[in-house]
């Protein structure tokens, strides 16, 4: 261990130190002025963003090969840092309004973000597990942040129990992989898999358990049962951050682990992944049809989006499609991030204390009273559906074309059909906003409005010119590919 190791992970070290510093500083910031903590944490995230971008294209390995910094990790780190910034922008006014203003929100968010970043750096299964815990534990607390609200407590406890359960799966899988190969670092396992010097049964079971664990984290059907309750009960900014960050981190780990470590197992895993993807798309979209609460609707829609993402992952064993699949998934994650935060910003603008203002009926008349909010929400919902000229269309386009390229056109067909189904419940919200009379009550705070405005602008501009983002995603190379 020497200083160059720390040089490679400067952003991470900085973010953790900053979070600890904030925890201490916040003690002396009087209640009611927690905006200072919010600003300080946003400043810390911006500095971390600069530090991440500084490392640029170079590939660094550190800590005896257990940590790797490459284009892939830089792309996702930027995504996580932007998510955290959005999480802060959405949170401050919301927490004040609902009487939840406590400074711990911001350090916890920062620590969770650092866990997500570590997940993208991890090049060793133990490191993956460490990152998983580092990102999850603050999220368990954040889910119960509205602690006098029973629903929030339920969300926190449920998330904690199922999270611990899924961590157990991951750890057991890691243990079995170690038992089968004798290594926990990715190159070691990959080499053992190539030489065939391993116990194939244990190895396969281990890979399956790791997949199950991350399936819980990314809310894939049939491991999705926790997510609607948790998404509904947790405070909305936390839900937004969780649905983007935790999901992207789960997929980052899946990509890194399966592409680098288990490429040879694709023959055995492909049918499993196929079924998971198809099931996730179907169940997520069909159950979303009957939801009347906007938070639950977005939760099921988020499950459905996990299904689309997993679809591109199915042909990961096919070397000629692999890089397209990774680029497509990164592109989709970025699109999903922008769209989701925008949509949640609108939800937060309408949400009132005690879980009021969250029914779809509460959106009636929004189109006439608040044309800006309704217009941005419409853009986000169209992007979720995948209507052309939005970012979501290109995201789905790349995912579907990857699946077809990999020879899984049936899966692409399922994706297309379920997207059509999803149009019904997304457009229903649009219809309610514009066609039904009503007097929606909106809190017009600057930061959420800014978030939804920037999100809508990005979704439209990048939807017209997706090349910029696609180039970034394509050049985000994975080490060892």
């Amino acid at each position, binding site marked *: *261990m020497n200083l160059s190791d720390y040089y490679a992970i400067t952003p991470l070290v900085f973010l953790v130190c900053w979070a*600890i510093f904030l*925890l*201490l500083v916040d*003690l002396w910031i009087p209640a009611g002025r927690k905006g200072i903590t919010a600003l300080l944490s946003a400043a810390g995230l911006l500095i971390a963003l600069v530090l991440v971008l500084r490392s640029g294209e170079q590939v660094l390995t550190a800590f005896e090969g257990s940590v790797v910094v490459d284009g892939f990790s830089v792309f996702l780190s930027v995504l996580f840092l932007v998510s955290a910034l959005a999480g802060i922008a959405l949170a401050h006014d919301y927490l004040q309004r609902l009487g939840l203003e406590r400074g711990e929100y911001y350090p916890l968010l920062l620590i969770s973000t650092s866990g997500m970043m570590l997940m993208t750096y991890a090049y060793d299964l133990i490191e993956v597990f460490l990152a998983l815990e580092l990102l999850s534990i603050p999220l368990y607390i954040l889910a119960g942040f509205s602690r006098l609200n029973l629903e929030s407590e339920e969300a926190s406890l449920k998330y904690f129990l199922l999270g611990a359960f899924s961590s157990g799966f991951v750890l057991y899988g890691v243990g079995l992989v170690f038992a089968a190969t004798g290594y926990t670092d990715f190159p070691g396992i990959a080499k053992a898999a190539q030489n065939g010097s391993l116990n194939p049964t244990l190895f396969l079971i281990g890979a399956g358990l790791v997949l199950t664990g991350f399936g819980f984290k990314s809310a894939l059907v049939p491991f999705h049962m926790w997510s609607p309750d948790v998404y509904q009960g947790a405070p909305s900014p936390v839900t937004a951050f969780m649905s983007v960050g935790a999901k992207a981190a789960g997929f980052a780990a899946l990509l890194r682990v399966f592409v680098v470590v288990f490429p040879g197992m694709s023959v055995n895993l492909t049918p499993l992944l196929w079924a998971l993807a198809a099931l996730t798309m179907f169940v997520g979209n069909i159950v979303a049809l009957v939801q009347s609460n906007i938070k639950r609707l977005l939760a099921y829609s988020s499950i459905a989006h996990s299904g689309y993402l997993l679809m591109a992952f199915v042909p990961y064993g096919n070397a000629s499609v692999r890089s397209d699949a990774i680029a497509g998934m990164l592109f989709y994650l970025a699109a999903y991030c922008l769209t989701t935060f925008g949509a949640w910003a609108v939800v937060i603008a309408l949400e009132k204390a005690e879980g009021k203002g969250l029914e779809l009926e509460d959106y009636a008349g929004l189109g006439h009273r608040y044309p800006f909010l309704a217009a941005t929400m419409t853009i986000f919902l169209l992007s979720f559906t995948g209507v052309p000229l939005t970012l979501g269309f290109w995201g789905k386009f790349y995912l579907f074309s990857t699946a077809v390229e990999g020879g899984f056109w049936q899966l692409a067909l399922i994706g297309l059909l379920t997207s059509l189904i999803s149009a019904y419940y997304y457009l229903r919200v649009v219809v309610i906003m514009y066609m039904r009379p009503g007097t929606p009550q909106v809190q017009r705070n600057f930061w959420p409005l800014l978030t939804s405005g920037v999100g809508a602008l990005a979704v439209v501009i990048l939807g017209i010119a997706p090349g910029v983002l696609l180039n970034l995603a394509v050049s985000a190379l994975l080490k060892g590919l």
Partner: protein
Amino acid sequence: MLNEYYPLVVISMIAIALGFFVVLLGSILGPRRPTQHKGQPYESGMIPYGPGTRRISVRYYLVAVLFILFDIEVVFFLPWAVAFRKLGVSGFILMVIFAVILEIAFVYAWKKGALEWE
């Protein structure tokens, strides 16, 4: 490889079956004369009072959490102290960083009033 475990499986199955069998035998053959004293949780100990699921003050949990804070500190300090010379200056610096982080947690708890009992 798994064959080696075969006797173990047989033995555990016999043990489990035997356990059930003995309990079953006792409940079939044994006489049953319940008295008040036999029904108590501790036949010859303190006389229990109150329900078993009393509420416990949340402060105890705070104490428990603070205890874990220092417990972990000790758990890490002991092996470090044993290997102090080997780890040298870098080990010392890392340990100081570790201790500082823990102390920050302690300051946080203190300032939040975790040590005030009234």
